[in-house]
């Protein structure tokens, strides 16, 4: 099963979004693991198939992309993040995972 990893400063606000994404995945019948962590704990979570950063951690995207060259690393759209649009973020994640890094 694919695993989507969301990361922000402490993993708090992303965990709210994770709940929304899980609801959306259930409704759509998609089997996927979704988790939220603090940005500093990303390495403990391997393996995962995509890293999605909260917009406030967007500045870490470059370093992480270099560290994980084989998977997509992206920053979540500000508006989707703020409105906790789990549907849209899940769609983006799936699209990016299909496309690859």
């Amino acid at each position: 099963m694919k695993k989507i990893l969301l990361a922000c400063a402490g993993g708090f606000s992303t965990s709210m979004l994770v709940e929304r994404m899980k609801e959306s995945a259930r409704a759509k019948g998609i089997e996927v693991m979704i988790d939220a962590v603090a940005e500093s704990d990303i390495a403990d979570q391997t393996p995962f198939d995509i890293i999605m950063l909260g917009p406030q951690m967007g500045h870490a995207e470059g370093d992480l992309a270099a560290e994980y060259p084989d998977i997509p690393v992206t920053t979540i759209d500000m508006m989707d993040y703020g409105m906790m649009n789990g549907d849209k973020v899940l769609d983006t994640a799936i699209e990016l995972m299909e496309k690859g890094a």
Partner: protein
Amino acid sequence: MAGSAEWRSKIQKASTKIQKNTYISAISNGLMALMPILILGAIFSLINALKLEPYQNFLESTGLKDYTSIPATVTTDVIALYAVFSIAYNFATQHKQQGFSAGILALMSFLLVTPKGLLDDGATKAFGYSWLGAKGLFVAIILALVVGKIYTFVLEKKFYIKMPKGVPPTVEKSFAALTPGFIVAILMLIFSAIFAATKYGNMHEFVFSIIQLPLTSLGGTWWAMLICIFVIHLLWFFGVHGTLVVYSVVGPIWVALGLENLDAYQRGVEGTHIIGSPFFPVYVLIGGAGATLGLIIAMLFAKSTRYKTLGKLAIVPSLIGVNEPVIFGMPLVLNVRFMIPFIVTPLVSSGLAILLTTIGVLPVLHGIQVPLGIPVLVNGWMNGGWRVSAFQLVMIAASFLIYYPFFKKADAEALEQEQQAEAAAAGKEKGGIPNAQPVS
């Protein structure tokens, strides 16, 4: 706002440099990892020292006091011991070396330079508590980084004696692990000898008076706090987690000040530092960065569906200081309209808090590290009783009043857009051409 995206990327790069600097991030992650210990010690301090006479009498008469006083003495009172291990551990793991080995070597170094002596009975060996807590925190930080650096350097450069061929590789490995240990131990002995020859007598006294005292005095001033708050919110305005970036630099200072206050509180006196670690969550982040709780309350009464939905979504996490939904959903990031209230509101609440504490209307905060999940008002009460909670309540109202005029305009615009979108949708059904973006 032309060029703002460019600015944003520049600021993001600078923030990465600060926050990702291995020394700074080892300190901040190392201290962050101590949160459970800090929180535990602080909560037990509160349980032990809460000023309610019947409650204290109860503790005394039942003999519970003998026990409630223990946790603080093995947590916050000796925090430097935890810190030196944790920071060296983080430093080494960042360099892809074994954190545990670096951590125990750093702990050994810390104990090496710490004064030891005999108890009054003349026989029992002892470490004094004086340098193991907040007062020893900067030595802990310095040694953790020095030892972490030596440890990783020795292993990365393979700077150790190679065994002749035929010696089992495991033997060489164990020898390699010993090398940094010996280097560090000898270096610490040299440090001890050097500092013993100065008027300071030991490394702790030296670091405390030359580095820690000046830095904490500086970091504890009202203007340093206000500058930090300004920078944090400016960073947030550009979409960067300002709290994280600034905290990674000034965090150790605030923690040290907070712990000194906590120590005073334990002894039944009021602390002396107006600025300390709880100042930030209690007086600045009322509802999260930008002190947005008042804004979110205003949103609950919004006329537009968009902001009403966002308000409902944001209110509960905001009570515990998590407000990313408003920051990005409003949005407050790169939103010039809200820039003034976003920066001014936290400055007003913290400025007033400093003023009122100075003249004695508000108590100095106890220095209790509040766990995330403890809502506003309660975190204030825990750190200084009802006066602090009452002040927070007034500041929530202030936040509402400061944000309201700005929010009213945004709300009216959103409502107009929604009505246009509705009209367009209705028009489309009749075969018209939609000219407005639907608002989701």
